[in-house]
């Protein structure tokens, strides 16, 4: 950790960021940020939610203008007027929130803005072939003509990555590219990055999965509250150190100690099948105070399963019982009345109303609490929101628009929405996607608390460590079939993977 001197003369042909500042109204989100990226290296940019990582990246990629500061890129001053200029200068970026065109094909999404032309018309054959090849290298094997709308989240993220990798950029910024990916896809992505790196391409890599850093990064830059707080010349520094620098204190432990589950069975799922066969004959039960993890590879049908239990999708057969009462799964409203709530996987589309305030987002679905007689008083919403905000540690105030929050904080808002009801069955699909370590530990604590207070908790996650560390038992799905339920003492990385790939 050293306060590096500012680089005004360029000893190498890479990127120098000098004293970038950015404020939104009275709030300074970036203060004097300076760092460099050398040709052919991967710099990991770390920091908790809202630290300013995306902001600094967006400035480099030309989609936001800084208030102050300069950038030198390939030996010349560089201040892109818009993303087009940045792409022109060889700087590309994968944005944190999925930004795709749902009604266009996969290939068109990959090549949008730079469609290959031949003799005056779009060369669809080449475009499809190239897009398809790039996607295969990333482990996604879908028709390039398929509409992006029909892809699940993970696949969309891979399309986004393919889009960036085909840019032929010299500097590529990857803002949480693996948030929705499983281990295998992540490995394939790393393989691509290493290859491109060897060809001289530089990367800025942002992730909250700290175990990835040692695998892929060459150097580490840590941010906190809009400032650079540390620079490391190597990437294999202890996670503990990085975490301390990120959050400004030491994080004692990641996973909370679990209390033993109660006796009463709260959630019972019997022979549940979906009309599209994305899951088949799934049966399990969760006791009061118990946390059930659901593991599986991407596309195993986990999301479909929990959505069905929460009434969001129709089922073709099977029964769901909550506290021994069969639930008529006619819709989310019925499920919520029966005490089943879901924190969905896709926060932008299903989790929050972006233009509305935190308070309003928390009040939606909780009107029976906020407004028992149907009268919604701003004070009551405010109080309700403040409780949720402080319980989850959301960085924001009740009357702030959710769209202005960092991704991680948005996720916390969605969890906060259901925490105060309290429900009987709490289902979380990828609850820590895009959430920083400090906050993640906090969310784990909340989840453990939920269980302790007598709820049945179901956690779906692609992060194996998370499933294992957090669950009393782990249900493994593979291709829509239930492969087994492992107890805490028999569950391990290997055991789960064995079932998941069976």
């Amino acid at each position: 950790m050293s306060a590096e001197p500012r680089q005004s003369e360029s000893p190498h042909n890479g990127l120098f960021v000098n004293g970038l500042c950015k404020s939104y109204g009275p709030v300074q989100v970036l203060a004097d940020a300076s760092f460099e990226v050398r040709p052919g290296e991967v710099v990991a940019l770390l920091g908790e939610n809202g630290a300013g990582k995306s902001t600094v990246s967006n400035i480099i990629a030309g989609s936001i203008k800084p208030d102050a500061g300069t950038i030198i890129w390939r030996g010349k001053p560089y201040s892109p007027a818009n993303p087009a200029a940045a792409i022109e200068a060889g700087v590309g970026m994968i944005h944190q929130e999925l930004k795709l065109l749902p009604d266009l094909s996969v290939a068109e999404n990959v090549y949008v803005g730079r469609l290959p032309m031949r003799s005056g018309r779009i060369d669809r054959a080449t475009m499809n072939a190239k897009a398809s090849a790039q996607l295969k290298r990333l482990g996604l094997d879908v028709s390039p003509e398929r509409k992006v709308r029909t892809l699940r989240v993970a696949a969309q993220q891979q399309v986004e990555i393919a889009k960036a990798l085909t840019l032929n950029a010299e500097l590529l910024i990857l803002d949480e590219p693996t948030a929705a990916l499983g281990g295998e896809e992540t490995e394939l992505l790393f393989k691509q990055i290493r290859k491109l790196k060897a060809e001289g391409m530089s990367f800025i890599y942002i992730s909250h999965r700290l175990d990835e850093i040692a695998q892929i990064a060459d150097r580490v830059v840590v941010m906190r509250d809009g400032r650079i707080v540390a620079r490391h010349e190597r990437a294999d520094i202890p996670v503990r150190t990085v975490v301390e620098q990120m959050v400004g204190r030491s994080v004692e432990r990641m996973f909370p100690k679990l209390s033993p589950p109660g006796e009463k069975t709260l959630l019972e799922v019997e022979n549940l099948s979906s009309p599209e066969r994305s899951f088949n004959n799934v049966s399990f039960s969760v006791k009061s105070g118990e946390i059930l993890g659901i593991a599986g590879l991407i596309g195993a049908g986990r999301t479909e399963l929990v959505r069905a239990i929460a009434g969001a999708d129709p089922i073709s057969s099977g029964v769901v019982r909550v506290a021994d009462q069969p639930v008529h799964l006619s819709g989310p409203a019925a499920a919520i009345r029966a005490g089943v709530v879901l924190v969905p996987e896709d926060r932008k589309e299903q989790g929050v109303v972006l233009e509305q305030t935190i308070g309003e987002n928390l009040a939606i679905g909780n009107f029976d609490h906020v407004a028992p007689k149907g009268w919604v008083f701003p004070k009551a919403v405010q109080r309700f929101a403040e409780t949720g905000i402080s319980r989850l540690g959301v960085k924001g105030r009740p009357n702030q628009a959710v769209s202005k929050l960092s991704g991680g904080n948005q996720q916390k808002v969605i969890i906060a929405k259901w925490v105060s009801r309290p429900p009987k069955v709490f289902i979380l699909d990828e609850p820590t996607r895009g959430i920083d370590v400090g906050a993640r530990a906090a969310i784990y604590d909340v989840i453990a608390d939920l269980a302790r207070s007598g709820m049945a908790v179901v956690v779906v996650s692609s992060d194996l460590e998370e499933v294992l560390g957090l669950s009393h038992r782990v249900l493994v799905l593979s291709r829509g079939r239930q492969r087994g339920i492992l107890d805490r003492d028999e569950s391990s990385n290997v055991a789960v993977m064995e079932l998941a790939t069976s």
Partner: protein
Amino acid sequence: MAVSNETSELKAGTGAAQAASGAKLSALFAGTMGPLIGLVLLCLALALTTDTFLTVRNILNVLDQVTVLGIMAIGMTLVILIGGIDLSVGSVLALAAMVMGYVAYPDYLNLGVPVGIVAALMVAALCGLVSGLLVTVTKLPPFIATLAMMSVARGLANMITDGSQIVGFPDWFTNLSIVRHFGFLSVTVGLMIVLAIVFAIFLNYRATGRSLYAIGGSAEVARLSGIPVKSLTNWVYAICALLAGLAGIVLAARLDSVQPSSGVGYELDTIAAVVIGGASLSGGIGSIGGTAIGVLIIGVLRNGLNLLGVSPFIQQVVIGVVIALAVATDTWRRRRQ
């Protein structure tokens, strides 16, 4: 973690305090400062250039003149809030008025005006319900569903009397829009004001009202949060049509006649009033306060240009320019923030 939260909490605190101070007054006009400035400027300009604009009688005239538009715009606000649109309001207005006339008028069913009003409102609400069901069940885009209803309702309105009008209602009925009680308030204007207040309170302080904002913000999020999106959507279209029907009755009282051709083109006026008032056609943003301002901007503009004696063709040009300016004030203001 804890530290950073405290600092941002501090900063946030001042902002919240500022907001809170003005909150009581401006709650109903939240997000409508821009159009409001436009309206005030417009009134100022007219007060300076004419000696008739700023008279009590003229202001009452303006209120009178915007009643029909105002009542329809309330319903349209709800529809636009949930991300819909209703092109059928003008036709439904005509249909309701014709039903009222047909049921009430001596030459036809002769059941009296009160029965006529009830019948008219029921027919109107039914039209809205059909539009709503076309949207929620048949999954038609609202534009198409209400475009179809626009055509059907107009045809039906014409068929009732084969295109002719019905003239002459009891005095008590026409007096509703003529007699100014307490020297200033006709029943119809009062009705509009009461409706505006009721719906403003509904949208601001009732759980169902807030749910409409959620639906407009994201129907899927609303559904997953347990809000009955479909049934609320049906209700909203039914209420919008019901209010259009009510506007038809107010128009009948105002004109002492009903005609199947009334309300042609009103849908655009109504939508314009709501959008000028700051609502977003993609849903989730808007308020009754804003709509009221939008309605008044349109009403004052037309009234003022008549008072100025501006020739009709130049009026069209001026109206276009002023509408653009009024809304632009808002976007400028927001951008400076």
